[in-house]
C-alpha cells in the first residue's frame, strides 16, 4: 500500500469535486440566528447605576430593570453596530451573574417571570440553516454562534439562578413549563459545542429540580431520538442528551417501569443504526450498560437488538459494536449469557473471519478478557462448534499474519478447554464442509425446479393467472 505515497501529486490539482480538506480552508465561520438580521434600527439602553451602589431596598427593583434591559437582543453578524450598547449589556450581564451568585434575598416572586423572560428572549431562537448540506461533524469545523459573548453570560446567569440557594421550584414551575423545556430541547441542535455544553447543565438542573417535568422531558427526548433515527439522521445534540440520560437511568427505581424498558428497546437500540454513531457511541454504550446493571433480565433483548442492527458494510461501526458488546459481556450474568450465546457467537464467528483485520482483531481480543474466557469455558460445548469452522479456516487463509497468530492462540485455548470435542471437530471438519456443499447444491436445485414451474405456469396461463 505504500506505493500511493510515492506517486507524484496529480497535475490537475483543481477539479470540481469539493474535497472536504479543501472546504475546510474557508471555514471557522460563525453564524447568528435567523431572527436578528433584518432589524435595522440601533438599540438604545439608558445606563443604570450598579447594583452595589444602591441601598439594599432598592436592589430588587433595579435587578428587575436590569433584567428587562438585557431582553434587548443585538445583531452580532454586524460587527460594527451598537458597539457601545453591546458592551453595556455584556457588563450588565456580568454584574447579574455575580449578583445572583453572592446576594441574598434578591429573589422576589416578581423576579421569576422576569428572569425566565430575559433568558427566553436571549436563548430561544430559530437555529439558522446549516451552511453545508453534507455537514460532517467529524470532519468539518462547527459553525460557532456569533452572539456567544452575550449568550454565554445568559446561560451562566441562568445556571447560577437555578443553582441558587434561594431558588424555589414551586414558584418557578409556573414559568419554567413544558413549552419552555420544549424550546430548550430544540436548542440542542445548535452546531456550537459550547452552547450544547451549557444546555446540558441547564437541562440537568431542570430535570433535577422540577419533578413534574421529568416524564415530559424524557418523552420529548424520546421523540427527538426517534425523529433523528427514522426521519432526519440529523441532530447535533445527541451525545449531550445521552449524557444526561446516562445519569437519569442511573437514578431509575427498581423494578424498571415498562416505559423505561420500551425506551431502551425501541429508542436506544435503534440509535445504533445511525450513520454518525461514532459521535455519540461512548455515551450510548454507557446508557445501555447502565440499564443492564439495573436489570440483568434486559440482556437478551439488548443483545438480540444489537445483532439485528449489526453493521453489514461499515467496518468502523462494527468495531464499535464489538467494543460495546464487550462492555456488556463484562457485566453479564452467567444465566443470561447462556440464553444468548448461540446467536451471539454466530455473529462473533463472522467477525473473527472478517477480511477487515481490525474487526477480526477486535473480536479476537475477547479471548484476552478473563471474565469472557471463563464464560466461554463453561459453555465450550456450545460455543466451540459454532466457532470452530471459522477459526480453522482463518488459521489457514487469513491475509494478515497478526490475525493468524491470534487465531492460533484461540484455537489453543479451545484445545486446552475441551480436547475431546476439539479433536472430534477437527476430524469431522472435512465431512462437515462437504455436507454443507451438498446442501447448497440441493438448495440450488430446488430453486431451479421452482423456477421451471413458474415458467411453465406462466406459459400455461399466458402470463396472467385468471382470477
Amino acid at each position, binding site marked *: 500500500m505504500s506505493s500511493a505515497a510515492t506517486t507524484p501529486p496529480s*497535475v*490537475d490539482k*483543481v*477539479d*470540481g469535486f469539493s474535497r472536504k480538506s479543501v472546504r475546510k480552508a474557508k471555514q471557522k465561520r460563525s453564524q447568528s440566528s*435567523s*431572527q*436578528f*438580521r*433584518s432589524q435595522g434600527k440601533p438599540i438604545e439602553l439608558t445606563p443604570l447605576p450598579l447594583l452595589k451602589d444602591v441601598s439594599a431596598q432598592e436592589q430588587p427593583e433595579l435587578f428587575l430593570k436590569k433584567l428587562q434591559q438585557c431582553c434587548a437582543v443585538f445583531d452580532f453578524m454586524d460587527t460594527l453596530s451598537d458597539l457601545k450598547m453591546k458592551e453595556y449589556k455584556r457588563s450588565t450581564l456580568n454584574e447579574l451573574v455575580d449578583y445572583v451568585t453572592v446576594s441574598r434575598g434578591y429573589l422576589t416572586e416578581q423576579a421569576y417571570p422576569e428572569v425566565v423572560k430575559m433568558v427566553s428572549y436571549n436563548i430561544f431562537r*430559530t437555529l*439558522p*440553516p446549516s451552511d453545508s448540506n453534507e455537514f460532517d461533524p467529524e470532519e468539518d469545523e462547527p459553525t460557532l454562534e456569533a452572539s456567544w459573548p452575550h449568550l454565554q453570560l445568559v446561560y451562566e446567569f441562568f445556571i447560577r439562578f437555578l443553582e441558587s440557594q434561594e431558588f424555589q421550584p414551586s414558584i418557578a414551575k409556573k414559568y419554567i413549563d413544558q*413549552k419552555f423545556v*420544549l424550546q430548550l430541547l430544540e436548542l440542542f441542535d445548535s452546531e456550537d459545542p459550547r452552547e450544547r455544553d451549557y444546555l446540558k447543565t441547564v437541562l440537568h438542573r431542570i430535570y433535577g429540580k422540577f419533578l413534574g417535568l421529568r416524564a415530559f422531558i424524557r418523552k420529548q427526548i424520546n*421523540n427527538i431520538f*426517534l*425523529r433523528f433515527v*427514522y*426521519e432526519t439522521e440529523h441532530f447535533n445534540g445527541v451525545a449531550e442528551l445521552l449524557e444526561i440520560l446516562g445519569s437519569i437511568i442511573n437514578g431509575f427505581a427498581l423494578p424498571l417501569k415498562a416505559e423505561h424498558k420500551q425506551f431502551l428497546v*425501541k429508542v436506544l437500540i*435503534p440509535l445504533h443504526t445511525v450513520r454518525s454513531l461514532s459521535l455519540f457511541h461512548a455515551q450510548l454504550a454507557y446508557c445501555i450498560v447502565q440499564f443492564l446493571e439495573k436489570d440483568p433480565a434486559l440482556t437478551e433483548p439488548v443483545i438480540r437488538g444489537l445483532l*439485528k442492527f449489526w453493521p*453489514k458494510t461499515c467496518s468502523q461501526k462494527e468495531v464499535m459494536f464489538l467494543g460495546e458488546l464487550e462492555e456488556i459481556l463484562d457485566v453479564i450474568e452467567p444465566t443470561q449469557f447462556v440464553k444468548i450465546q448461540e446467536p451471539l457467537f*454466530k455473529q462473533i464467528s463472522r467477525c473473527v473471519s472478517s477480511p477487515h483485520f481490525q474487526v477480526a482483531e477486535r473480536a479476537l481480543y475477547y479471548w484476552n478478557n478473563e471474565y469472557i474466557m471463563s464464560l466461554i469455558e463453561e459453555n465450550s460445548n456450545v460455543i466451540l462448534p459454532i466457532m470452530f469452522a471459522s477459526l480453522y479456516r482463518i488459521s489457514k487463509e487469513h491475509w494478515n499474519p497478526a490475525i493468524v497468530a491470534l487465531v492460533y492462540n484461540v484455537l489453543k485455548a479451545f484445545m486446552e478447554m475441551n480436547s475431546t470435542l476439539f479433536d472430534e471437530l477437527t476430524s469431522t471438519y472435512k465431512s462437515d464442509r462437504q455436507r454443507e456443499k451438498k446442501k447448497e447444491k440441493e*438448495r440450488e436445485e*430446488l*430453486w431451479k*425446479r*421452482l*423456477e421451471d*414451474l*413458474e415458467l411453465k*405456469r406462466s406459459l*400455461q*396461463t399466458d402470463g*396472467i*393467472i*385468471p*382470477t
Partner: protein
Amino acid sequence: MAGAEGDDSLYPIAVLIDELRNEDVQLRLNSIKKLSTIALALGVERTRTELLPFLTDTIYDEDEVLLALAEQLGSFTVLVGGPEFVHCLLPPLESLATVEETVVRDKAVDSLRKISQEHSPVDLEVHFVPLVKRLASGDWFTSRTSACGLFSVCYPRVSSTVKAEIRQHFRTLCSDDTPMVRRAAASKLGEFAKVLELDYVKSDIIPLFTALASDEQDSVRLLAVEAGVSIATLLPQEDLEALVMPTLRQAAEDKSWRVRYMVADKFSELQKAVGPEITKNDLVPAFQNLLKDCEAEVRAAAANKVKVFCENLPEDSRETIIMTHILPCVKELVSDTNQHVKSALASVIMGLSTILGKDNTVEHLLPLFLAQLKDECPEVRLNIISNLDCVNEVIGIRQLSQSLLPAIVELAEDAKWRVRLAIIEYMPLLAGQLGVEFFDEKLNSLCMAWLIDHVYAIREAATCNLMKLVEKFGAEWAQNTIVPKVLGMANDSNYLHRMTTLFCINALSEACGQEITTKHMLPVVLKMSTDQVANVRFNVAKSLQKIGPVLESSALQAEVKPVLEKLSTDQDMDVKYFALEAISVLALA
C-alpha cells in the same frame, strides 16, 4: 384457478419455509424476493392456510427482508386466489405497518393502499376498515403513523356511519401527542381532504389545518403548508379568504425559516390554487417578503419561482405588478451575498424577457443580465449563458455579445474542469445564435484549445462539440476552419494529442461526408498506423472501423485493408485485437 394447485411431494412447505428461515440474510432475502414462486408452488389454498400464517408469525427479521416482504405482498392477490380472498393478506401487512423502520412501514402502507382497491365494498368494511382502526389506536407511534396513509383509500367506498368514524379517527391523530404522528397526519391532510365531501372539508379539515399550521413544532407546521395548497384547490373562491388565507399568510411569516422555505417552494402551486384576485392582494406582497427574507435558503427558493410567478400573474395587471413590485426585489437579488440565491435567480431571470417584451427587457433586464454575466461565481454566469435562447427570441443576442464574450472566455478557462465542461456544452447553442462570423472570429480558438486540455473529459466533450458545430455550419466550413487544425495535431509530440486527432476524425467523418473523409482524413489516419505508441495504433484500427462506412469502397480495399492487415500482425495484443475486429466488421477478410 385451474392448474394453480401445488404438488405436495415436490415442494413440501417445510422445505420452502426453511428457505425463508435460512441463517444467511442474503439467502433469506433472495427467498423472500421470490416469494411469489414459492406461493405458486404451494397453490392458492396452501398459500392462504400455511404460508401466510407463517409469514404473519415470524415477522421479526432484518429490515431489508421485511421491506422485500412488504413489497411482495402488495401484488399477491392472484396468488391467494383473487379479490375474494385478498383480505388474508391483511394480517402480515398489518404487522409490517407497525415496524419501526420507516421504509418498511411505508412500503407496507403502499401495499395496503394497493390491495385496498381489490377489496369489495363489503370486505372493505368487514376486514380493511377494522385494520385501519386498530392501527389508528395502536400503542406505539408507528402504527398510528401508518394509519394516517390509509384513511383516504377506504373513505370513498364505505357507508356514511363508517365515514364518520374514519373522520373521527383522523381528527384524533391530528392532535396526537407525538410529533411523528402529527407529521404523518399533516402530510396526508391534503390527500384526505380531497376524498371528503365539501361540507366536511369546511367543518372538519379546516380546523385541523389551522391547528396543524400553528403546531409547536416547525416540522409539523411546514407540512401543513402543502396541505393548505391542496385544500385551497378544493374550496370555492368565496370561502378561501375566510378559511385558508389567514393561516397561509401566517405561514409566510412564520418564525421558522423552514416553514417560510416551504411556502416559497410551493408558491406556484399556491398561486394557482388561490386564483388571480388573492394573488394580487396577498401573494404579491408575500412573495416580495420571501424574496427579501433574512435566510438565504428562503430567498433562493423564492428566486427559483420568479419566472413562473410572473408568468401566472393575471394578464391585466401583470406588467405593472412586475415592474413596480417584483423587479425591484429582483434587482437586489442580483447582488445578493449568497451565491445560491444569485444562481437560482440566474437560472430563471432570462425568462422574464418574454413576459416583459423588448423595450422593458432592454431598459430594465439587460443591465441585470450583464451584471450576472460578470458575477464572481461561475455557476451564476453559466446559468445566464445556458438560458440565452429566451433573450434571443426577444431582443436578439447581439445586444449581449459584447459582454458575453469575456464571460465565455473566462468560463472556458476556469480552473474547475466541470465549469469548462458546462460551457462547452453550450457552445453549439451559442454558435447557432451568434452566427458563424462571430464564432470564427471569437470562439473558434477556444474550441480548438479545449482539444488539448489536460482533462480527458474536456477533450472528449470538445470533440463532440466540433461534431455539433459541423452539423450546424456545414462541411465546407469544417474543411476550411477546423479540419486543418485537427489534422495538424497528428504530428504533435504528445501522444494524447495525436489520439485526439483520431477521436475528432471518428466524430467528424460522418458530418463531413465522403469526400473530405477520404481525401483529407484517411491519409492522416493511415500514416498514424506506424506510430510508435501502441495506444495510438490500436486507435487507428478503431478509427478505420468507424470511418470505413463513410469511405469510398475503392479506398477501403486499396488503402485501408493492407494497413489493417499489417496491424493485425502487430506485436501488441490490443492492436491485433482491434485490427482483427475492424477487418471483420468492415468485411475485409
